[in-house]
């Protein structure tokens, strides 16, 4: 089995590599010291399995998985102590190891991973996983967007509005647009409800950007944003949601 080790601590990587070197049929094809490297190496090397640390600078293990999406290999998560992550692993039946990693447990996890690979058990949805690892009542803080080989981290308070376009979402921020494959219902459920309002079937608005509402036709309105030029359609339900939030 070809394995990619992902951990920001060099000692922890060395330890896993040492353990794996003594095992049969296990080959360490690469080591990544952060999430960006992990995404890059996973795509270049297409390993069978990632040993993936949850807490890392810049990108967490969950975010690495989300960015790789369907290109993600099988994953065994590694964490020192994170009750929310552990609960998510249990809920989604994801394999995980706790630091300090015991060799016997590592071996067992690798065996299970091998069986799953043979049986073609799909990896769980990274977003659903990340979703249940987020502490309750804590909305999404940033959106990850891939553009070719680059990863953009978009803090949610920089988002002006989100527009649904076919299978994509278009995130508008400071006059620029970035596209991501995700559904409107999903992003709506992740973002802070007291701040992002579904004003229309295709539009989710950051209410902090709202300047005023103008009537447009019967049962429809226009939301004029703070930049003075952007006008977004507001449906009847959208209008009542806005009214409810702003009062």
């Amino acid at each position: 089995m070809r394995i990619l080790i992902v951990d920001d601590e060099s000692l922890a990587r060395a330890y896993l590599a040492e353990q794996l070197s003594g095992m049969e049929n296990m080959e360490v094809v690469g080591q990544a010291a952060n999430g960006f490297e992990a995404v890059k190496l996973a795509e270049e090397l297409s390993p069978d399995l990632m040993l993936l640390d949850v807490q890392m600078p810049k990108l967490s293990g969950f975010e690495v998985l989300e960015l790789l999406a369907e290109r993600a290999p099988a994953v065994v998560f590694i964490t020192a102590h994170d009750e929310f992550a552990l609960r998510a692993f249990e809920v989604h039946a994801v394999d995980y190891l706790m630091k300090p990693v015991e060799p016997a447990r590592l071996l067992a996890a690798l065996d299970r991973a091998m069986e799953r690979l043979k049986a073609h058990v799909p990896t769980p949805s990274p977003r659903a996983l990340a979703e249940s690892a987020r502490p309750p009542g804590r909305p999404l803080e940033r959106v990850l967007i891939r553009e070719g080989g680059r990863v953009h981290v978009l803090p949610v308070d920089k988002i002006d509005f989100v527009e649904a376009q076919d299978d994509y979402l278009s995130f508008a921020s400071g006059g620029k647009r970035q596209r991501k494959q995700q559904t409107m219902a999903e992003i709506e459920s992740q973002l802070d409800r007291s701040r992002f309002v579904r004003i229309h079937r295709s539009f989710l608005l950051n209410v902090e950007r709202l300047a005023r509402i103008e009537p447009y036709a019967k049962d429809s309105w226009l939301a004029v944003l703070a930049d003075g030029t952007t006008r977004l359609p507001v449906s009847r339900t959208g209008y009542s949601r806005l009214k409810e939030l702003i009062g």
Partner: protein
Amino acid sequence: MADTRHPITARRERLLLYLTVWLGFGTLLAAVIAFRGETAFGWAAVYAVPLAVLLGLQSLSCWYLVQVLPAEGTPLARLLGTWVGAGFVLLAIWVAAALGWAWLLRVSLPQALDDDVVNGLTPLLLFSGAAGLLVAVLGHYMLVAFERSTQAERRALELRVLARESELRSLREQLDPHFLFNSLNSVAALIGTDAQAARRMCFLMAGFFRKSLALGGKHSIALSEELSLAETFLAIEEVRFGERLRTRFDIAEDVLTLAVPPLVLQPLVENAVHHGVAHLIEGGEVMVRARQREGLLELLVENPCDPERPPSRGAGVGLQNVRSRINALFGNRASVDVKAEERNFRVSILLPASQARAG
């Protein structure tokens, strides 16, 4: 109700003082009786003093009514009505006793009280008894209020002490489980490659936990002790983070013996590593500085941070804890100043400089 015992009878010196006041009342009454008629003051006192003591003992029962009729929160009509009723009963008993006592004295010792006095006695008794009872009731209310305020003061003090102790306890318990598990992982890793380093790491960890346990029970320690804890902590984290974590101590010679509250630096240094440097791919330097100027001890912890870092869980707890402890201990003689820039985080603490007690 905190204490159901009578506040006056519960303490002997209070009871004596109370009866002395009533003896004064008796003397006054005797003087009035002597002044009005032909009775000698001595005989008037023989008559009046026991009556005063009786009224004093009767008045003790006021306390029970004071308990059920607190001055605040009882409707005025009910308050007045009950007291007038109770006063009337108490007064009636007392006047009856006084008249009986006068009759007894007249019969047994005819020379003691003269007729004029006995004839005009009832209005005098009514008036003086009512006045005595009124003073007694007001006195009881004042006593209860006094008891309450001292009790409240004591409770507030106890609460403050308790709060401080629990803060310290929670600080000790806050020793990050991440820290423990990650350190153990480092030990496990080192054993395979560098047994000496693994051993050193074990000693560092033992030292860190021993020191932090020892500090928890103290109110004030020398800065050198606090710095030693922070140094041990950073040495452990340097093993874990390798080249990514660099540390710098800039400590003036003359501050090492100054007194600081225990665990005043440690939470800040932990934050600097776990919420600062740990989020940086290239790592960074944690700087700890201590110096003295103008009678103040200045402590400073500074670290670089990632502008895109997610708002981390629990980052504010340690800092908030340090802030509230310093505030409780020193009030406006100390300050905690936080400067959070996009790529840099700095906490500086100013404390009054005083020498730590040796030992």
